[in-house]
């Protein structure tokens, strides 16, 4: 299945990445080759299988309990820019 440069650019917007025109063209070629290889999955007989055929139990949840968190200061040690307890970023909505 041939992947186009325009499809790559669309996917890049979804993935919050950007590429030059040349990079997008190269990626389109790579994806075409990779997805052609993946197409052999279409030959597999998958009848009789559901998404959870061998799953034994549903999601295991723990008790919803409030536990005091004592490391608030450390949590934001890696944040680039703070204003008090708020993370500083450009306006999200103009």
């Amino acid at each position, binding site marked *: 299945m041939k992947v186009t440069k325009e499809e790559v650019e669309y996917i890049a917007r979804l993935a919050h990445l950007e590429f030059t025109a040349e990079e997008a063209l190269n990626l389109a070629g790579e994806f075409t080759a*990779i997805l052609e290889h993946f197409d052999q999955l279409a030959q597999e007989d998958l009848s009789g299988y559901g998404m959870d055929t061998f799953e034994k139990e549903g999601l295991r949840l723990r008790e919803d309990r409030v536990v005091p968190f004592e490391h608030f200061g450390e949590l934001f040690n890696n944040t680039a820019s703070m204003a008090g307890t708020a993370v500083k970023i450009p306006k999200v909505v103009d």
Partner: protein
Amino acid sequence: MEVEKLTIKRIHEGLQQKEFKAEEITKAYLERIKSYDRQIGAFLTLDENSALETSRQVDQRIARGSALNILDGVPVAVKDNMCTRGLRTTCASKMLEDFVPPYDATVVEALKHQGGVILGKTNMDEFAMGSSNENSGFHPVRNPWDSSRVPGGSSGGSAAAVSAGFAPMALGSDTGGSIRMPAAFCGLVGVKPTYGRVSRYGLIAFGSSLDQIGPFARTVEDAAYALEGIEGFDPRDSTSAPGRTKEDYAAAMKQGVRGMRIGIPREFFAEGVNPEVRRIVLRGVKSLEDQGAEVEEFTLPITQSGLSAYYMISSAEASSNLGRYDGVRFGYRAGEYKNFEELVVKSRTEAFGKEVKRRIMLGTYVLSSGYYDAYYKKAMLFRQKVRGLFREAFETYDAIVSPTVPMLPFKLGEKTQDPLEMYLADLFTVNVNIAGIPALSMPAGFSESGLPVGIQFMGNHFEESKLFRIAYALEKDLGLDLIPELGGVE
């Protein structure tokens, strides 16, 4: 002191008998790292002061007459995708170049609790995406057996560290073969445990339904001790398996293989496998047969489709997991941006490497509207088929054997131009992660040019003890010399 020859067991005995001190051992390993790691590139961060302090604390406990854990005083290298509180954790990416975690991963807590001496953080393929450790955002790792060749990936730094004698034990992570493959390329034992056996809390996620942490060591016995030290239920990891009793692999492994049934899937030995690899692995199988195991060929037609399914599932999960890296709360933030969207896009584009971006894009593509059914859903249905086929196979066999990698360790740069060619290195490892079963890779011998060859044993869920039994029997028979001369062959 020839620390490169020490094992976990030998260190434990030596400390108990007061032949040497923990601080002495740690200093010797640190000296060896400083002497040789420039040519290997195994470590990204050394934590010299903390390591020496921990070793001194172990010596103080010995002086007080305290009983020792098997890991007390044992130097350990930790792959740089496991959070270590206060110690830089980068995933070998510019995105996390200055990231200092505010907490320890559960496995790191376990090591510290048992007196393990964490020497530092090891190099890897960026965000664990790669099979050669050439995708590190900082510098590649070289194979201690031949420095012109790759150590395998993505846990290449951890593998190279143990192989080069920088530590007797290291931790890696395995999503599609990232422990087993470098173990094979570096002449080591590497274990990918059953999914859920070892906590993923604090492991920076790549493919959350596939990732598992496991050990590297030079001997099967050491790998057994290492796994015993890090496994166990963790309520902080919702995928951690509850209700399992503590296992003693080191005790169980000496029972021999008489009467065990080992399956050889013919598709894993087909055309395309390097002839030397095939010959050496089959010689290992013969050794087990001579020791009383029953060996039988059977069909397991999952390799090619499994590789496709793996890359779709893992890339899809990666595209979701790596969505958190947006320059807002932590990680790299671009220097210049006009608005919020540019902050996010530029931060991600500037900081992620080529392979990471490729996989995020592939994952986003297979999940996107119009392609979800054709790719991702199909891959997930095939995943169930793989589980079913393994389940059937393990009704007959105690373990399934294969080469770990279809090729010998390749030269740096040899496979970097074609991503698909690199992906093919994972042909025999990915289905293990898809099914969540355990697998162990160990040295089976050397090629004529002196390159290590790995043999892989796959087992049923939570049957790691059978894998250790088989591996120990083979190791004893082979008696390989597994310490490379550093400097390698150019």
